[in-house]
């Protein structure tokens, strides 16, 4: 029993931080939102070199042989830096579903793949920025073509409906379920990372911003709101790691759902409080805060809404539930 990150996992997080910050940090998201995907795709290649897209793929399949915990560690950093692009799809959902030729393209970063999962993820993310689109059915995979992109609340996200083209490849239901749960876990990790960053930004701001002649962080009302964010994030984190350990096991589904609900709730609280601490400045596009506020709002409904995941837990805890 050792329920704590290993040194290797902490190093992985630091390596990601360094690469992303060298690539410009939140500037990558800003240029992506303006339609310039170049810096974002350059970062994509660097992260491919690090092995992100094969992080928990077996070494025999060209991956790094890591665990779902490694994946959670990596995606928390992506959320922390508001990195744009279909990482969940390419690194968490698709690697074990696609055929080897596509997979090698994903692993080396040459292929930016995105996907829709009808019923759960109706819109594919960043189809225009990607080079391949897939529709993932309950027991199948199809190539797809993308409709026009629609605007998300998160300006870095363009969403498209997909239409399957060509023939379906049959897949095991269990493999699809596992891949979708892995993607959901990655999304939960992103939410946690965004939540941590929102809290960090709010705390920093509360220390320097003055109102009525004192730092606003001295006022108990804001202090307690920030403390509540700390509490929510602190108790969402073990659910994320617990789900990573359970992934693919008998409790995998309910643990992943619990992680998604808890990280979503915590990140949403973080967004609300961070905005309240910043006031009007946090509501402007010039300020980075909006990157995480809108990202959190978008991810809340992605990879299963809170409704979907709470009902899934209910049906697993008590089979008679709907």
């Amino acid at each position, binding site marked *: 029993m050792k329920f704590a990150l290993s040194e290797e996992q902490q190093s992985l997080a630091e390596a990601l931080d360094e690469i992303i910050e060298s690539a410009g940090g939140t500037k990558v998201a800003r240029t992506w939102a303006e339609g310039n995907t170049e810096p974002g795709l350059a970062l994509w290649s660097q992260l491919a070199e690090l092995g992100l897209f094969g992080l928990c793929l077996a070494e025999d399949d060209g991956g790094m042989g890591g665990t779902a915990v490694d994946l959670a560690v990596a995606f928390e950093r992506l959320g922390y830096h508001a990195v744009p692009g279909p990482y969940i799809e390419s690194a968490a959902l698709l690697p074990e579903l696609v055929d080897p030729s596509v997979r090698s393209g994903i692993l080396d970063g040459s292929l930016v793949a995105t996907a829709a999962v009808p019923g*759960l*993820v*109706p*819109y594919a993310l960043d189809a225009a920025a990607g080079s391949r689109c897939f529709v993932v059915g309950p027991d199948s995979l199809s190539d797809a073509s993308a409709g026009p992109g*629609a*605007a*998300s*609340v*998160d*300006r870095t*996200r363009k*969403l498209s409906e997909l239409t399957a083209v060509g023939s379906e490849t049959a897949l095991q239901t269990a493999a699809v379920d596992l891949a979708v749960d892995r993607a959901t876990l990655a999304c939960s990790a992103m939410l946690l990372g965004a939540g941590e960053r929102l809290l960090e930004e709010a705390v920093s701001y509360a220390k320097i*911003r*003055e*109102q*009525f*002649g*004192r730092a606003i962080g*001295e*006022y108990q*009302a*804001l202090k307690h709101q920030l403390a509540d964010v700390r509490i929510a994030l602190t108790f969402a984190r073990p659910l994320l790691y617990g789900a990573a350990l359970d992934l693919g096991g008998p409790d995998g589904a309910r643990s992943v759902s619990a992680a998604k609900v808890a990280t979503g709730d915590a990140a949403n609280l973080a967004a*609300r409080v961070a*905005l*309240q601490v910043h*006031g*009007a400045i946090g*509501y*402007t*596009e*010039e300020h980075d805060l*909006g990157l995480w*506020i*809108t990202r959190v*709002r*978008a991810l*809340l*409904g*992605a990879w299963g*809404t*809170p*409704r*979907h995941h*709470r*009902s899934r837990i209910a049906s697993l805890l008590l089979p008679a539930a*709907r």
Partner: protein
Amino acid sequence: MNLDLTEEQQAFAAEARAWLAENVPSAPLPSMDTEAGFAAHREWEAKLAEGRWSAVAWPEEFGGRSAGLVEWVLFEEEYYRSGAPTRVAQNGISLLAPILFEHGTDDQRNRYLNAMTDGSLIWAQAWSEPGAGSDLASIRSTARRDDERGGWLLNGQKTWSSRAVWADRGFGLFRSDPAAQRHRGLTYFLFPMDAPGLTVRPIAQLDGSTGFAELFFEDVFVPDADVLGAPGDGWRVAMSTAGNERGLSLRAPGRFCAAADRLIDLWGTHQQEDPFAQDAVVDAWIKSEAYRLYTWGTVSTLQDGGDIGAEGSVNKVFWSELDIALHETALDLLGPAAELRGGPGVAGGRWMDDYLFSISGPIYAGTNEIQRNIIAERLLGLPRGGDGRRAS
């Protein structure tokens, strides 16, 4: 105690309803925080003026109907239920006009009030300054006397100026006595937005709109005729506006009742997928009802000669939290489609856009933290903290 309307009041509401049914544009106007949308909203104000619905509570000579408070609330309710556009003239009609009626000169009233009702004169407000936030009294922008030209020279910076990008004129406080502190030595000015020396920098917002702006003043000249109230008396003059901003005029109950009705409709179409949203939908309806009834209580108080005072703070916290909860419930019901920004034919409609607007509610017009201080200290009589913090 009763909620009965007179026959005249019922007829008034029916007339408004009929006119709105006839005249409200069938498709929503583009956002007023775009150039085209601003122009479209201005046109709508002109149309309202044709029907004499722009400012029903104003005297007829200024384009109103001399309607009483009850009629005014009835009109607002009909207005929002009809799906009519948001009022681009709100800064002028709701914030400035009450002050013009109370403190303005006849000349000011004659020059400005009628033009506010037909969309030809749209006002920007210029309250906040950079770094001041809720501390409205910490004003550093200055007004320097210019005796030669018979007026004042404004210098400094304002921010979060709403409608400023396309507005015709603005209003705000400037420090006319540099030696005075905080609430003292301020003067209330009216100025043209195209005045020489005034630069407007739009501020892009989280929701992509640019309705707010920063204003930079470099020796902007304002003649004495555009000082509102006495020089140095600006804070007292302005506070009637602040009371208004937080009170009845900012958030008519019709707005929330109409939103609750739309939420119930949305739930009707999503009930199969999400039966569990029932309680949240019901609570949104209960609270919008509470807000509607509370408003009638406020109207009764005002009619009896009472005033709202710190009750406005109770009101502000309540509606801003209701607004967010109501929109979050709608987003929950919409599922993954909630993420999409609104536009013709979009699955989620305008719910996400309206949600983004709602989350600014607890920040503006006095943060909810400030409002809770006011409630605790003025309504409950709790002691002020010994930490030098002010409630407002």
